[in-house]
């Protein structure tokens, strides 16, 4: 067992431990898992196996393509009826379970509290479900009068040959509202990630650019890949407003289809979760010439850095000044809390296995508190999220990726922003970086263990080996880890807390770590008589 004290001089080499973990596996499984576990060396360009098929029988964290499309990307959008075409379960499980907060004004549509399904029955599987789908759309239109309807395909839909796209076209013509379909059957990809891509394509094709809106602000921006879990987006919105940035649209926390439709009038796209949303950023750049930058609002330092980067992009003195005022004021508040919490938690060990960006972003917050991340990995990311975007040209495109349509995007001459393209070129000359995601691995310590798509067996072994003080993952892992007497922080749902984004979020997170890492409740586990010798009763009924 490693001695935590040694960690002060760097993390121990986990090579032997890795071998021990792999030993349990059948040979083929071991070979595959070996490549998905990297003993990190930030000085070297290491290659990790990611975004490949989950091994059958392995207890994985991953979900399906539908979950990525309906649940993650379109779920947080309130003014659309998200109609799930399939048996009831898929709609039921994605019903309000992701904590995407939204603020709908009185009188504005908000369908997020509803689950809509065609509830396919066996006769629909045998004879086809298109008629039922059409009728469900008509009924939804008649009862709820929405301005758009999205149709989400579940596993059986593609197999029985229901064509949701032709149904969408027909119904769009019949009802005169925007209706579009997603071929996001659960089996389509190797994880949720495929669903993100499909959702990106669908929104881009059917919504983005539908309405041109006159400018409403001097600095118009979109925030991409921020889903407003626990109110993160609200905290970011608050800061934008104060700095004078006009947020046109967020993909997709606290969002509307209405705002996606005019989001092509932005001057800059900011990508938060690179994994789930980089596709739209890329396509908007190709079509409209809008540049994108990678941002991170998780962590106070990261937030300050991001705000300065935005200000630098616009190169406006007034904006830069406002940004500095906000950073100075907010940082002071953050520092006051950090000064109280850091001495209590410094040197503790964390590990995090979650998502496609959070396992990276949240390392910022832990670093600010002096908590060491000994092991981390994503659930559904690709190599570029680990190693950086420069590896994209070298990523082998396998059959599962080829399944997903790669939209061919052409320049929109009318709306193309030559001014932004020129601005980008100019800024790049001075060293400003666009489309700049360097991935998680360069930011992690030497000898930290990076594991893609960690599974239950590996989770158990990691806990035994590192004895972390805190483990970050999701609901399926939470109570497993906690049975070991180790607190688990959910980084999907935030354990119903948050927000953790930006300055206010950092304060919340510090306080949460103070609670989780400082509590004595875990010491209550052993009864006071655990180590006492057994006494044979002399005043019991039997004696």
């Amino acid at each position: 067992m490693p001695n935590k004290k040694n960690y002060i001089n760097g993390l121990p080499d986990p090579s032997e431990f890795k071998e021990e973990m792999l030993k349990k596996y059948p040979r083929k499984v071991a070979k595959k898992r070996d490549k998905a576990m990297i003993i990190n060396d930030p000085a070297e360009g290491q290659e990790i196996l990611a975004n490949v098929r989950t091994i059958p029988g392995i207890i994985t964290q991953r979900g399906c393509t539908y979950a990525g499309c309906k649940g993650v990307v379109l779920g947080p959008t309130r003014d659309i009826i998200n109609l799930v075409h399939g048996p009831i379960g898929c709609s039921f499980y994605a019903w309000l379970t992701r904590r995407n907060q939204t603020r709908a004004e009185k009188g504005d549509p908000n369908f997020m509290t509803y689950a809509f399904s065609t509830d396919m029955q066996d006769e629909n599987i045998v004879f086809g479900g298109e008629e039922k789908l059409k009728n469900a759309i008509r009924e939804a239109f008649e009862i709820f009068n929405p301005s758009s309807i999205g149709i989400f395909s579940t596993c059986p839909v593609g197999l029985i040959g229901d064509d949701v796209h032709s149904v969408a076209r027909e119904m769009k013509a019949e009802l005169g509202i925007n209706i579009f379909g997603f071929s996001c059957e659960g089996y389509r990809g190797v994880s949720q990630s495929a669903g993100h891509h499909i959702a990106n394509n669908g929104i881009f094709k059917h919504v983005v650019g539908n309405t041109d809106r006159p400018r409403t602000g001097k600095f118009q921006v979109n925030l991409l890949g921020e889903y407003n879990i626990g109110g993160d987006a609200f905290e970011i919105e608050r800061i934008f407003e104060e700095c004078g940035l006009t947020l046109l649209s967020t993909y997709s926390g606290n969002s509307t289809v209405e705002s996606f439709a005019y989001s092509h009038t932005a001057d800059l796209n900011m990508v938060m979760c690179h994994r789930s949303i980089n596709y739209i950023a890329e396509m908007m750049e190709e079509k409209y010439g809008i540049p994108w930058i990678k941002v991170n609002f998780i962590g106070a330092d990261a937030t300050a850095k991001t705000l300065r980067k935005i200000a630098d992009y616009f190169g406006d003195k007034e904006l830069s000044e406002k940004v500095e005022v906000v950073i100075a004021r907010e940082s002071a508040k953050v520092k006051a809390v950090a000064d109280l919490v850091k001495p209590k938690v410094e040197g503790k060990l964390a590990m995090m296995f979650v998502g496609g960006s959070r396992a990276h972003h949240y390392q910022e917050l832990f670093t600010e508190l002096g908590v060491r991340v000994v092991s981390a990995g994503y659930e559904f990311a690709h190599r570029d999220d680990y190693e950086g975007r420069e590896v994209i040209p070298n990523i082998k495109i396998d059959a599962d990726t080829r399944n997903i349509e790669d939209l061919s995007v052409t320049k929109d001459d009318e709306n193309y922003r030559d001014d932004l393209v020129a601005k980008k070129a100019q800024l790049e000359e001075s060293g400003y970086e666009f489309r700049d995601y360097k991935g998680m691995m360069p930011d992690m310590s030497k000898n930290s263990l990076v594991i893609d798509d960690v599974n239950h067996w590996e989770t158990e072994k990691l806990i035994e080996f590192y004895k972390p003080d805190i483990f970050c993952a999701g609901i399926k892992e939470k109570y497993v880890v906690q049975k070991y007497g180790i607190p688990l922080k959910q980084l999907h749902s935030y354990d119903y807390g948050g927000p953790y984004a930006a300055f206010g979020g950092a304060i919340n997170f510090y306080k949460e770590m103070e609670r989780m890492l400082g509590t004595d409740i875990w010491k209550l586990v052993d009864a006071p008589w655990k180590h006492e010798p057994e006494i044979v009763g002399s005043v019991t009924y039997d004696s």
Partner: protein
Amino acid sequence: MLLRHTTSNVKERKALTVNPAKTCQPVGAMYAALGVHGCLPHSHGSQGCCSYHRSALTRHYKEPVMAATSSFTEGSSVFGGQANLLQAIDNIFTIYEPDIIAVHSTCLSETIGDDLGQIVKKALDDGKIPEGKHVVQASTPSYVGSHVTGYANMLEAFVKYFAYNTEEKIRQVNLLSGWVEPSDMRELKRIAGLMDIKTVLLPDTSDVLDTPMTGEYKMYPKGGTTVEEIASMGNSMKTVAMGEWGAKSAAVMLDNKCKVPFSLTEVPIGLKATDRFIQELSLAGKISIPEVITEERGRLVDVITDMHQYLYGKRVALFGDPDTLIPLTEFLVDLDMKPVYIVSGTPGKVFDKRMASILSEKVPEAKYKNGPQADMFLMHQWIKEEPVDLLIGNTYGKYISRDEGIPFVRMGFPILDRIGHSYFPTVGYQGAIRILEKMLGVIMDQQDATAPEESFELVM
């Protein structure tokens, strides 16, 4: 308003389900399989199903819920999932070492026509199932029935696979339970214990989904019906099956396969359903009902008579599963309450028949519906037409409760936002007292919160 688009204008729907009062079969199969000792549920389909079901059960119990998946990709969906399941079986026995893998299908594997029985046989022939280990399979297409159907199908698969009549009668009674909580299963065993009847309860999720914190994680906790116990069910004197939807098919299987006769009763929720259950137990165990049981019953009736004024005439809307809604409705009627709106997404003709017999005389105005489009949206529309005083159902009811200002009692699956269901039963006489306590609590809290100051009561 949380459900701002819901109006009282009910339009007939034939295709659209809104806010379902059910979910799909596999989650029920997974729950049932967790009630068997040393068993790892396995979802034969796309990995999202498994992930969703584990998440739903975990949120409901706040306990580890383990299950594996065949992780279908497009290829397996086209060419069949045999290779995936064979590999999964091999991996699971090697890595996770359960005694039993309980495979259930999904809409995906059912649609492509995977034959689980044939695949499991191939695994056996190929030597992928180690000596003394078992793979049980149940067909649970998500487009038939509901989560309750999946639960029933998995139970049936267990008795079909394990139970044998070896011609040696054992003086024990089989208890097949409809979908209830671990606390309820514990309570059923306690009641049988009070009556001094040897029973085998299937499934039994107590000590599986309510495990103590020990600082150690056990992938297969100590609870769950054991293989030996299920095998012995084939030699029992009788089966008492609680629930037309959840337990009957397994009872019929035991009767057909092992000639163990059964009596079908309802999940013992409330006074009369518990009375019938106790009488069935007494008949099956050939034992008179002990005084302690009569005393428990008496305590329940005492609470009912004490608190009648707060319950009398109260209009109630409820949603959930037929096996629990039917006895609960009967209980509410016994309390002189008015269960006026009842919906369940789970289909089955017995629902209408039982509801009619319970409600037609005392609550003729009641509206009830089960099966397609019998959803929470419909129930909410009925409430908008004419309000109720109390709402009972799973956590999703909180949106209606808040919008309409209706006191709300959480019962059913899933309960995502409160604790208690794992620890405090709602079955039996004691369970009925808990239901009363919960209903009275919210009704009286509402009175306290809204009464004019001059009529704010100290004693109630």
